[in-house]
Structure formats: C-alpha cells, structure tokens
C-alpha cells in the first residue's frame, strides 16, 4: 500500500472530520425535528382541551416519553461526537479500542443503512488498551467501511469484528463483494491508514467473493 503524502493525508482527515460533523448535524436535525413535531402536537392537544374536551393525560404522557427517548438518542450522538472531537485534539494517546470500534461501528451502521445494507458488529466485552492516534485510526477504519460499501451489493450484509489475539488486536471488516485485484489496489491507495501513527498494519484480501480488510494493532 502506497503511503500518502502528509499534505494529502491532512486533507483527507479534514474532509473526514467534516463528513462526520455533517452526519452528526443531520442526525441531530432529525432528532430535533421529531421532538419539535411531538412538542407541537402536545401544544395542539393541550390547546384543544378546555373546549369541553378533557385532557388526554395518557396521550400527553406518551408524547412526553417519546420526546425523552429522542433526547436520549441525541445525547448519545453528541456524546459520541464529543469523544470523536476530543480524539482530533489528542493525536497520541492511550485509549480503549473497544469503545472506539463501537463508535465507528455505529457510524458505519448508519452509513451502510443509507446504502441499503446492514452491518453487524461483534465486539468483545472488555476494554482493549492501545496507544496511538485515535483519530487517525477512526479515519482509517471508516475509510475501509466506505471502501467496502462501494463494492457491496444492495441488501448485502457486512460485519465488523474486533478480536484480541495475544498481543495484537485485529479489526476486521468483511462483506460479500466481487472486485478484481486491480480495482481493489486502485481503491486501496485512497485509503489513508498511516500505519506509523498507530503502529499497526493493514491487510486486504478478496477470496471467494469475500472482501476482507483487517487492521492489526499492537496492544499496550
């Protein structure tokens, strides 16, 4: 895999940040518009009551509950984004690989959902401590997901796995896709993983129609 020039990598990372920021913004927009709808409906109901009609307390309570659920969802999203932004600030840190992959998995699920596919995440229970560039790694893994989506057929499913094998952790992204080696190598060069930064390796293989991209990271 060819190494990108630092300038190119910077541009890609900035664009990646922008994309994630845009995602988050859209998700929050959605959450907020739902909440707005519910609140509006609430107001309508309350305004309607008093003209002879009694307050449908149950209904109102239900709506309140719905709003609360949306707020929880929004909070989760912002929490994730906050972690993501924090990672951009600290380019060399110790972090929990499991929670990082979990965050990326959520992003990836949404991304695949928009492409009409599904993603299954298989993560271990415990935390896996590693040292490196969390932002760079997120960028790399998400780029791999985007790459996979390009070749995945509609309706197909993909998996993202995190396994700890001895002193190395392996993140594997897999999916059914047919792609020639030349196509793959052309696209791989657009992947930005700078192995130096998170001291790992990237492996790609396409056997029997199963495209697999694996990241190996040493456990500290």
């Amino acid at each position, binding site marked *: 895999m060819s190494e990108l020039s630092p300038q190119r990598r910077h541009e890609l990372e900035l664009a990646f940040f922008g994309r994630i920021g845009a995602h988050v913004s859209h998700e929050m927009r959605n959450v907020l518009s739902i909440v707005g709808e519910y609140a509006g409906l609430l107001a309508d109901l309350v305004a309607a009551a008093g003209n002879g009609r009694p307050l449908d307390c149950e209904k109102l309570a239900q709506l309140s509950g719905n709003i609360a659920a949306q*707020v*929880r969802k929004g*909070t989760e999203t*912002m*929490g994730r984004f*906050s972690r993501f932004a924090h990672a951009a600030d600290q380019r060399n840190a110790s972090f929990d690989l499991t929670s990082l992959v979990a965050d990326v998995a959520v992003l990836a699920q949404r991304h695949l959902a928009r492409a009409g596919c599904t993603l299954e995440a298989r993560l271990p229970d415990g935390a896996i401590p590693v040292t490196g560039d969390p932002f760079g790694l997120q960028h790399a893994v998400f780029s791999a997901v985007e790459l996979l989506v390009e070749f995945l057929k509609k309706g197909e499913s993909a998996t993202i796995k995190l396994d700890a094998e001895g002193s190395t952790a392996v993140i594997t992204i897999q999916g059914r896709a047919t792609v020639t080696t030349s196509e793959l190598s052309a696209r791989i060069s657009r992947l930005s993983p700078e192995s130096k930064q998170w001291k790992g390796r990237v492996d790609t293989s396409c056997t029997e129609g199963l495209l697999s991209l694996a990241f190996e990271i040493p456990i500290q």
Partner: protein
Amino acid sequence: MKPLRILIVDDEEDLAFTMAERLTLRGYRAEAVTCATDALQRVGEDEFDVVVLDVKMPGIDGLHLMAEIKQQHPDLPVILLTGHGSTADAERGMREGAAEYLMKPIDIEKLIEKIENSTALKKDEKP
C-alpha cells in the same frame, strides 16, 4: 420525616426551576438559583441538606463555588452536574470533595438516587 432541603444552582433558568419543580412534585423542598452570589446568600441564610450545582457557570467557576460553600458548610454534600466537555472538571470536583456527579441531560431518577445516597451518608455521620 422532614423533607430534604435541596438547593439547585444552574445558570439556565429553565433548567434550574424545572428541576426544582420536579423534585418538589416528588416531595422534596427544592429551591433554584441561577447565579453563584445568590447561591452563597441562600446557603448562608438557610439550612440545606444537599446542593446540586452545575460545574460550568458564568461569573464564578462551579468548583470555586463548591469550595466556598464547603468553607461555610464543610459537611454539606455537593452534587455536580456536568456536560460532555467538562467531565475532567467533574472528576477534579470529586477529588476536591464533591459527593457525586451526574451528566446532563439528567435522568431524574438517577438524580434522586444520588441525592438520597449523599444525604444518607451525612445522616449516618451525625451523632
């Protein structure tokens, strides 16, 4: 049993007063103030069982305020409210003597749990 007296300190009026009302509906005696000066004044004037305060506030740093309150009332438990960006402050607050901390947006049940925990401890310590 006397209802617990709770003082809520948060610069967001809508938040502070709503929280106080919700606690009141649940049988507590909750009061809300929106600035540190008011908070110090109320703590000086009346007796409270627990103070719930927002870590990030205008005019005076939340932890600063906690320190001042602790100076006047060393036994008064303080519960910190924090947002995503201020978890570090919350952890520091814990080291500096806060009883509990909670992330916004708050789950009212969790808040009540923490209020009960912190005041129970205090009760146990009383001779």
